[in-house]
């Protein structure tokens, strides 16, 4: 238990070092990884795993995955990422992905938050209201 806490604490410190101007910086992450590789220490793999998890979470927080069925204009994607950046108070970049199972509309995922404006979800809510 204590060892787990120590590993998580160390990984968090590494994550702090990976920020520049409040944002995750690729160069700094690279630097952290190189330093870790050079100074091989105890619990290297668990520390790396914990660090990876934290970095993934940070990346997810700054990425809006826009799933869409049909065509999505680049202007709309830019507008969505701009609005989300304002909402979350950090730079949110957008990644688009086509998903035909949505039937129509789009679904935006930012970390834990899901904004669903798809036909598939409307149909699912209609189904539950009828049952």
């Amino acid at each position: 238990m204590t060892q787990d806490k120590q590993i998580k604490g160390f990984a968090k410190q590494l994550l702090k070092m990976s920020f520049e101007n409040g944002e995750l910086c690729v160069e700094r992450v690279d630097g952290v990884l190189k330093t870790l590789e050079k100074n091989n220490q105890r619990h290297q793999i668990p520390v790396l795993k914990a660090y990876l998890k934290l970095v993934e979470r940070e990346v997810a927080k700054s990425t809006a995955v826009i799933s869409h069925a049909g065509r999505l204009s680049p202007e709309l994607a830019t507008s969505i990422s701009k609005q989300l950046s304002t909402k979350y108070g950090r730079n949110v970049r957008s990644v688009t992905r086509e998903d035909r199972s949505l039937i129509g509309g789009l679904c935006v995922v930012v970390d834990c938050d899901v904004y669903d404006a798809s036909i598939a979800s409307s149909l699912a809510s209609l189904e539950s209201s009828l049952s």
Partner: protein
Amino acid sequence: MSSVIEQIEQQIANLQSKTVATNTGKILTVGDGVAKIDGLSEVMYNEMIEFPGGTIGIALNLEEDEVGAVVLGESNHLKEGDEVKCTGTLLSVPVGKCMLGRVVDALGRPMDGKGIIDSSETNPVEKIAPGIIERKSVDQPLMTGIQSIDSMIPIGRGQRELIIGDRGTGKTTIAIDTIINQANINKVGLASGDPDFRPVYSIYVAVGQKNSNVARTLGILEEKGALEYTIIVSAPAADSAANQYLAPYTGAAMGEWFMSNGMDALIVYDDLSKHAAAYRQMSLVLKRPSGREAYPGDVFYLHSRLLERSARVNEANGNGSLTALPIIETLAGDLSAYIPTNVISITDGQIFLETDLFNQGIRPAVSVGLSVSRVGSAAQIKATKQVAGKIKLELAQFRELAAFAQFGSDLDAKTKAQLERGSRIVELFKQPAFNPIPIEQQVGVLWAMQNNYFDDIDVSKIVEASNSLRDFFSSRKEALLTSIREKSKIDDDLDRELKSAVDEWKTSFN
């Protein structure tokens, strides 16, 4: 057919194609009815969360990196990586009069095969108990129909009276008798058309019981006509620990509805020992630190926050009440174990049932010395106080003397008289199960005991004499019983009437 189409068209028209925002997470591990979830950054403590397939869970551990949640219901279909959604609502259950006569599970879903429950209201399962300002002293009686309890350990509306004893000593029987008695009183009161009459509705919460026991209780309540005033919340032994942990709070939420709407309700928690064990199981699986007897540190708070919800509220808050009869099972009569001492200190008194008395045929096996009601005497009706004021002391003295008298043969006249009287009182208080006695009959019989009408009757015939006197009262002196019930005290007129009635009975009994 056309109406169905119209209905569907209307539902489609009402359907809004707006963006739905949800907070989600992913299952990391799942096992023993507990899931660890990554994500759910906006989840609240005790919030309902939705697993795939419509399964509901409650978020109980909000940790730095993950959320620990208990799954309510089947968890076999859940797997790592499944999406979990926040619902934004605290766990709530349906409440209201429509629940009466029904058997429901820990989530308030019907399990008696009588169809859906059409409830328009819900109450949160966890709720803060009424505060000091909202409360009022206990001042109205709640008759159990059990002579020894109503006369010596009276219970008031809004009180928490613990029923404690070893297994098989009649704890559930006392609770069921009380529920049956409330139904009997409700029937008489509602039939009388008295506008001031306040019926008492009952909630029986079965935690970790065998399904056969719950079915037997249900059968008894149905047979005695008490089910129509009762809600049964069942989380049997086969249910998950999470459901067993929730069931008492569900029952309390239903009882609180009656209290907050100006009505009186009675809730039986059968039993809190199993509830504590279920909570221990859940806490250990959630990896919460364990303390004494492996119970988590907040096991006292588990029961205190539940029992504090039973209260008598003042006129400004509806003037309702919720009386609680929690049950605790002891091991070898050990009252000083962890959970019994916790619950004893929370409640306003306890009825202790002794195995020895039970085996001697003294049923209900109430131990007079160890039983107490801390607030109930303020609610006892004057008539009972007049006829039973000294009985508890006499009976306690008798138990002590009876133990002492075994060692000596020569006893003085006073001691002999005390023993004679004590043995008669013990016989008088014997009462068969599921046969509560109306308070006016109890007063009549105790008046006869106080006025020495049973002194010349052989001890072995006291039960028979008491039954005969009650039959006499109910068949031939109905008016007298009604005036005891209405006046609630024995004045000179009533005293004369009782004397002439008991004299009349005595000649016929001899």
